[in-house]
């Protein structure tokens, strides 16, 4: 990641290939972050695009002395996701509970793993859906803390910078989030055995 500030400089200098490289290097992480927050692939794609447009527009505000580019990018993405969450809260409350997670069969089949077999793919998909359903039941504060720590593998200090809260608060949120997630998963496990959606 040492070359990131250089890439940012080149992108700011109008070098399109540098911007493309930044996008390709971080696109997948941001997409997964968006997916974990929303639980919908189509919404995650839209949000990823919006995040990168915002990043492109505010790239000049990035200061390498303040931290790594990935931390800054995560903070921009997180703020955008929180805004999106607040904006769409009313919509989510009124939306049908039978809508599912918005991921159609076509979405899943469009990106099958080329290495694993069909059974492994099904199991992997089930685990992912179960985890996503459990994450959706957490409060936004706890969810983002758990996602950044356990799914995005960020350090406590980085999470603290991204969320703008002290490290102690981050630890507390992560701990409470994990406990809550464990309880939700435990409650969902029997339903999973019956093959019903939570």
């Amino acid at each position, binding site marked *: 990641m040492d070359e990131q500030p250089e890439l940012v400089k080149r992108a700011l200098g109008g070098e399109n290939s540098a911007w493309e490289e930044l996008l390709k290097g971080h696109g997948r992480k941001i997409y997964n972050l968006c997916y974990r927050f929303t639980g919908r692939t189509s919404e995650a794609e839209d949000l990823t*695009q919006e995040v*990168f447009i915002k990043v492109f527009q505010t790239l000049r505000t990035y200061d390498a002395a303040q931290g790594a580019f990935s931390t800054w990018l995560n903070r921009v993405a997180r703020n955008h996701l929180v805004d999106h969450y607040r904006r769409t809260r009313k919509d989510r409350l009124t939306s049908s509970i039978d809508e599912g997670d918005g991921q159609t069969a076509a979405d899943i089949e469009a990106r099958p793993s080329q290495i694993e077999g069909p059974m492994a793919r099904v199991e992997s998909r089930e685990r*992912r859906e179960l985890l996503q359903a459990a994450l959706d039941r957490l409060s936004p504060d706890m969810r983002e803390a758990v996602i950044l720590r*356990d799914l995005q593998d960020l350090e406590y200090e980085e999470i603290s910078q991204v969320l703008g809260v002290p490290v102690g608060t981050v630890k507390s949120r992560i701990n409470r989030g*994990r*406990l809550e997630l464990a309880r939700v998963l435990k409650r969902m496990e029997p339903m999973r055995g019956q093959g019903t959606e939570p």
Partner: protein
Amino acid sequence: MTHMELENLVSDYLEGQLDTVRRVEAEAHLDGCPECKELVATVRQTIELCRSAEELEPAPWLVPKILRATIGERQATFWERAMATIRPVLHPRVAYAVAMGVFSFSIIINVAGINLRHIKVQDLNPRTWFYQANRNGHLLYARAEKFCYDLKVVYELETRFRQLRPQPEPGPGEAPKQSPPPEAPAGGSTEGQPPGVPQLALVQEPGFEIRNSKFETRNSLPRRMGGLRAANFEPPISSLEFPVSRFEFRVANSQIGPMSSPRRTP
């Protein structure tokens, strides 16, 4: 340590961030509290589930879409345009056809005797190609024919040496054994000789002489093989009576026909 304290410290405990005192307290509590033990196990499984969750792959059109939305339609680089041009050629069927074309062309060039480094105007004339191909074909045929004749000479010489070896004499009480004549194949033979006798044994006169340790052929070599010398050829001579250690083959008369034919008088 109480249940509530352990619950607050479960993440630190699982991540190994507790100091020794707190860790010992937590372990002591876990030893006597099955509920907390189960809670710790469940949280551990949850963390493992999160960390083992594979990342989703974004749709392939997402990055190009974002690029279009940020920097507009991207201009393809020179190499991308070049690769796009030659990509159809890299298709296996096309590549195979091109390779076969090059191979065929190289064969034609080779057979026609055209030197691409020093190409001349007359090399472009198809009549020249035909002439050269015809010539090369005949040369090749002649070389092959000569090679066959060479082999034939060597084998014939070996056969005749075998005939020159003295047969072992029978003992005083033994009647000379005569090997029974080979049986004729079923249906008989239209030839006047038994089929088991080799054809070369019927040659009456050898096509060579041994004089003064010199081995000379009288005839029998085809005209095109005149001047053939097989120096340093050492046949199996252990049974020969005369002290010949080295033979020199020399065509005595190169105007006489093939070796297997009867000797002609010059």
